[in-house]
Every structure is written in C-alpha cells, then in structure tokens.
C-alpha cells in the first residue's frame, strides 16, 4: 500500500472512532457484580461486556449497510441505531428483572433527584444498597452510550473497509480496536458508573487522552497490517 492523504484520513477516522467508543463507555450505566444483587444502580454486568455487546451488534448493522452503500453517514448511523436497540432491549428487560423478579423500583444512589424527570431517589433506595435498577436518567445515558459506541465501532470498520475491502478482516480489527478503547475507559470508571450524572463521569478527559494515544498507535498498526504493508 502507499501512504498518502487518504491513508492519513483513515487513521484519523479510526482515532475518532476509538474516542467515540472510549467516551461512549462512560455513558453506559453499569453496576458490575453488586448490581446483579440489586446493590447498585445500573445494569448488572461489566462495562466492557455491555459496551462491547451493544457496540458490536451495531457493527453487524453497519456491516450489512456497508455491503449495499458507501455513504458514511448511513453506515455510521446504522451502526449507532443497531447498538442503541441492543442496549435498550437489554436495559428494559433488566428493569423487568429488577421490578418483577426482585421487587425493587429503579432508583439512583448518586443523586437526590433524577436530573431528567426530577423524581426523588433516596426514598426508593432499599436499605444497605446504593440504588438499584435503571432509572430514567441512566436509561437515557445508556442509550447515548450505545449511540456513541455503535457509531465509533462503525466508523473504525468503515475506515478499515476502505483500505482492504475485506469485511471479515476489517470486522475483526474493528472489534479489537473497540475492545482496547472500551477496556481503557473501564479502567477510568473503576467498575461502576450510573451514567452522565455520576460524579465519575468527570473523569472523561483522562479517558479521552488515553484513548487518543491508544487509538493513534493501533490505528497506524491496523492500517499497515490490514493494508498489506
């Protein structure tokens, strides 16, 4: 392959995609293991697990779209929507489990009032826990997380596809770059986050710097390897 302006553009697209993933992970409300025992607000799984599950479902949608069009907006938005559908379905059913299976109302342990609905939170937090379920603010935040993660993964895939035109290879590398950025962001979160209203969300600039550096290095390597250099 030859290194020209378009190659640089693809690397920039991969970096932007990586940053979208890294920032998007901060929006995903995850309570980790405590949430599975209704001890913490958010989805009862790990940050990387849920972000990867939704972002890569979006990648499937983007891959299908890219097989019929070259329009970058359609591809990226398609990936974002696919990821949002997955994470929304998961959060709804998660709330079913909390409300009907465990008998707890969704409530946040980090804020007194839901920033969107203004509903009071502490009276609905069961004793000895820091909230449970997915209240509206966390749900909306998770949807935004899915949007950013899905868009980021799709943008990385779009860039790689333009270099090597091999869906399998591009898909595999896109998954790799996605997971690297998701893991970096998850170190920043340290296990649990309720969404954009959580005080931990203020740590986003640190993740931005880390994901920028990581995506740049991986972007160059991915372009060189998948481009056949």
């Amino acid at each position, binding site marked *: 392959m030859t290194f020209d302006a378009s190659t640089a553009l693809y690397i920039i697209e991969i970096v932007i995609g990586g940053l979208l993933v890294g920032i998007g992970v901060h929006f995903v409300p995850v309570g*980790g*293991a405590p*949430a*599975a*025992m*209704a*001890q913490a607000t958010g989805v*009862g*799984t*790990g940050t990387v*697990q849920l972000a*990867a*599950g939704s972002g*890569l*479902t979006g*990648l*499937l*949608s983007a891959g*299908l*779209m890219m*097989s019929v069009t070259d329009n970058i907006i*359609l591809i990226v938005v*398609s990936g974002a*929507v*696919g990821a949002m*559908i*997955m994470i*929304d379905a*998961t*959060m*709804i*059913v*998660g*709330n*079913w*489990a*909390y409300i*009907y*299976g*465990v*008998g*707890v109302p*969704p409530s946040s342990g980090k804020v*007194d009032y839901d920033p969107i609905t203004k*509903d009071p939170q*502490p*009276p*609905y937090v*069961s*004793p*000895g*826990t820091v909230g449970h379920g*997915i209240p509206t603010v966390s*749900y909306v935040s998770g*949807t935004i997380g899915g949007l950013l993660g899905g868009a980021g993964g799709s943008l990385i895939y779009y860039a790689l596809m333009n270099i090597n035109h091999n*869906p*399998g290879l591009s*898909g*595999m590398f896109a*998954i790799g770059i996605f997971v690297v950025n998701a893991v970096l962001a998850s170190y920043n979160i340290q296990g649990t986050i309720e969404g954009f209203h959580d005080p931990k969300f203020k740590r986003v600039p640190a993740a931005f710097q880390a994901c920028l550096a990581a995506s740049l290095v991986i972007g160059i390597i991915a372009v060189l390897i998948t481009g056949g250099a």
Partner: protein
Amino acid sequence: MDMVSMGLLAAMGALATVAGASEDIESDVGSQSNPNSQVQLAAQVGHPHRIYNKAVSGEPPSNALYAALAAVTASVLMSGFGMSAFFAIATGAVVAAIFDGIYSVTAYMGRNTSQARFNQYVYLDILRTHTPTIMAHAYITAFCIVSISYIMTASWLPIQHPFPMPLVAFIWGLAIGAIGSSTGDIHYGAEREFQSYPFGAGLNAADSGDIVTKAEAGLRNSIDNAWFCAKYGGPITGMAFGLTVFLDNWRATIFDPATQGGLVILTGIVIVILFNVYNRILETRARKRYGPYPEYVGDIKA
C-alpha cells in the same frame, strides 16, 4: 420484503429466544458471571454449599468463544467436507459443549479445592450431575447462535451479511453473554440466592455471602436454582436477545437497505424512542405500586 425473508427473520427471532433462555440457565446452573461473587464468598463467611461454582470468565467472552468454536467447526465441515448445514452445525455445537464441559469441571475443582480451608468440599455427585446439564444448555445456545449466523450468511439465502459466519457467531455470542449477564442473572443473584430475605429489596451489603444453602428437602444444589430461574430469569433473557435479533434485522427486512437506507435507520430510531418512553412508564408504575421504603428516614419526600 418477501415472504421467505420474513419467515427466516421469524425463525431467527425464535432461535434467539431459545438461545437466550438456555444461555441464562447454563450460567445459573454453573453460577457463572456476577452472582458467582456471592457463591465464592459464601464458604468464606461460614456457609459451605453444594452450588456449582464455575466462573470461567465473564459470560460474553465465554459465550463468544463457544459460539465461534461451533461456527468454525461447522464452517470447516461444510466447506471442507461437504457436510449438510444441519449436521455441521450440530457437530459444531457438540464441540462447543465439550469445551464448556472441560472449562466447567476445571473451574469447579480449582475453585472448590482452593477453599478447602473454609470446609468447602468438592462434591463428585454435583460434578457428575451438573456438568452434563451445563453442557446440554451450552449445546442448545451454540446450536441456535450458529443457526442464526448461518441464516444471515448462507449464500443461497436472501439475507446476505458480508461478515464470515464465525465472525457473526462471535459477535452474537458476545451479545448473548452481555444480555444474559445483564438480565437473567439478576433473578438468580438478587432473588434466588437470597430467598431467605423478604421479597422487595436489594441485598444489604452487610448480608453479602449469606446465600441460601438449604432446599425444600436436603441441601440446595444448582439444578434447584435452574428450576427456579427457568420460570422467569431464563425466559426474559430469551426475550431480550430475541428482541435484539428480531428488531435489528426486522427493519432491514421490511425496507431494502440498498434503496431505503434512511427508512431502515428511521425505523430504528422510532424503536429506540419507544423503548425510552416505555422505560419511563415502567419506572413510574413500579414506584407507584411499591411506594417508598418504610425504613427511609431522610428529608426528601417521595
């Protein structure tokens, strides 16, 4: 949209629903994923148990591995040996189940022997009865996921996804693990493990590790847990994965992505908005029905 595509889409939705349910029950029988923290802790706080303990890894990586293994095996058998898709997928799922069995046994023996100082035994009858149950559920999950991936990628079928079949299976395996660990596990971790506590509250942090170890008769084992979770946790996990697979592909089936790409996206956005509205309704109804906790003594009014 043609009738064949709609039929295949319905089949994919049904397969996904079955896969989701079996994935959740597989993790419940083995106590994999997040509720495993309590099973692991139980012996250390004085509650040795007969619960299967196999935290191989998080559910998404393990299910992605099993699905990809099954899909690679099926793919090789179909392309290299000309085997029919049905038998190739079934054989692939057997390979995935065997790997799951190996990981489960080593995880159970490793974890329980390391807790010998807390009087936690390795029960050979639990290994003998539970491991085939775990493998059977892993077989169903792998079979359904590879079938979905095959429908999405087979060259003679109308849905033509550009990714190779193993990659599609890998992604669906990751997604089903993420969904299983986010939905059905709550029913196991927050309700079944702590059934001795009143219904309607999260686990008080002070009670961590105090899992129920006795059953209606004798000591509780993980098949008792699967029996309970199969009534609610498993089916809702199936619904979550079924909804994901169905809705994601439905919008690309009723509209042609090549000529109606905008409509495909617009349908997806409408679905997302409806989900958000429904969640708000769900939250409001739950709060109204359950009311605030009587123990709450703060200043903020409900």
